[in-house]
């Protein structure tokens, strides 16, 4: 995936913001708990499947004192690491925001 790629939060996670941080647990593997610092939390919250990684890294630059190249590299690195654990989806094209849970209820 390149800087024009997209990332979307997986629906197979539990996640909550605690102060500056975001805590995430994969439902598929509850043995792992992830804690994202405030920069990573911003990337997580922006990963809606429709906002490109480049746009997300631009948001980081506008909020934090970080060079654009470093912000983009860090964002890409984080997305890849989280995707490896199944808590983010990556794609070269926008990812639909359809509700993953919608099924016939009882």
């Amino acid at each position, binding site marked *: 995936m390149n800087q024009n790629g997209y990332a979307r939060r997986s629906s197979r*996670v*539990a996640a909550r913001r*605690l102060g500056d941080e975001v805590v995430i*647990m994969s439902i598929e593997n509850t043995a792992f708990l992830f804690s994202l610092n405030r920069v990573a939390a911003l990337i997580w919250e922006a990963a809606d499947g429709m906002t490109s990684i480049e746009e997300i890294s631009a948001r980081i630059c506008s909020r934090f004192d970080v060079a654009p190249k470093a912000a983009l590299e860090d964002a890409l690195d984080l997305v890849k690491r989280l995707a490896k654990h199944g808590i983010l989806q990556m794609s070269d094209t926008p990812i639909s925001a359809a509700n993953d849970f919608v099924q016939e*209820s*009882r």
Partner: protein
Amino acid sequence: MSSLLQEMNANALKLGIPLGVQLDLTYRCNERCIHCYLDHDDQGEMTTTEIKDLLDQLANAGVFFLTLSGGEILMRRDFFEILEHARVLAFCVKLKTNAVLIHEKEAERIQALGVESIQVSIYSHRHEVHDAITKMPGSLRRSLDAIRFLRTKGLRVIIANVLMLKNIQDYPSVRALAEELGVEVTIDPTITPKMDGDRSLLDLNIDQAALSRVFHDQDLVGDVEGFHSPPSTIDDATLDSLPCSAGHTACYVSPYGDVYPCVQFPLPSGNVRRTKFLDIWHHSPQLNEVRSISARELTGCSKCLNLKSCTRCPGLAYMEGNMRGPSTQDCEKSLARTGIPSTNLLSKKPTLAGLVQIGRLPILQSPVTA
């Protein structure tokens, strides 16, 4: 507890965030367990809309761990609608159920929605014992069938094995059954009073001899010698410590919207039908009183030799009449663990003959009560 989870708890405490909430969806149940602390009549449960609104509030308040319990959660026809809403809000959901209403279709739906775990109550591997406790013929077979359905879907199942006089000798076989099913098991030797204060259920509790046997079972406690090591000296850190998470980073909400510090701590602290959850959480005088209590202020307990290793439950103490006082059931556990009677037990000794067998320690060789 993992270090990250500890850190998460510490952060939540510092930020005043209710990290974990147990929400009982209903007190109605299809079983009639002899040890149950609830009244099963419907006194006006929250509607689907009210519960969804409450879940929105809990998510905004920062709740991460959401336990959905009852009663029997599947007695609510809107259960899956509620669970779906909870998962859309990204809660880490734990379910507590007797599972008798879970078949393949329900297991599949739970898997699709994604939950952290499903806790299923199993009292014995023997049908006649389990079904006599639930007062529902065929309940063990149905619960075990459900566990198999859930396991087939790859879900994490935890068997909850509550110990009482009727089933104390069965827990090793329940553990073996859990292993066979590929599920985890927790053992709980505590029967609590009814929420209305009726203490008659306590007669079902295992006695001191059986408790001591449980606490000396290496399969349960691991390092038996370490587990039973003499209590260490009381220091300032112990005296300044908080009793448990109840009211600090966790609370309980009943099917009627009543908020309590914990399911086992029925101190009415507000109602979400009248007041927003966060207002109750931050401003309830009752919750703030619970938060103000450190070990230093505990009547009797602060000077008790067992203080440092005691699992004193403030809710059980409250149900005994004083939230700053001792919980006799935990005093008995401390006695079984350290061999040292607590300050509370010593003060009660003359009246406890026959209830707590203080004079018979050590009691390793005592027979297990059937």
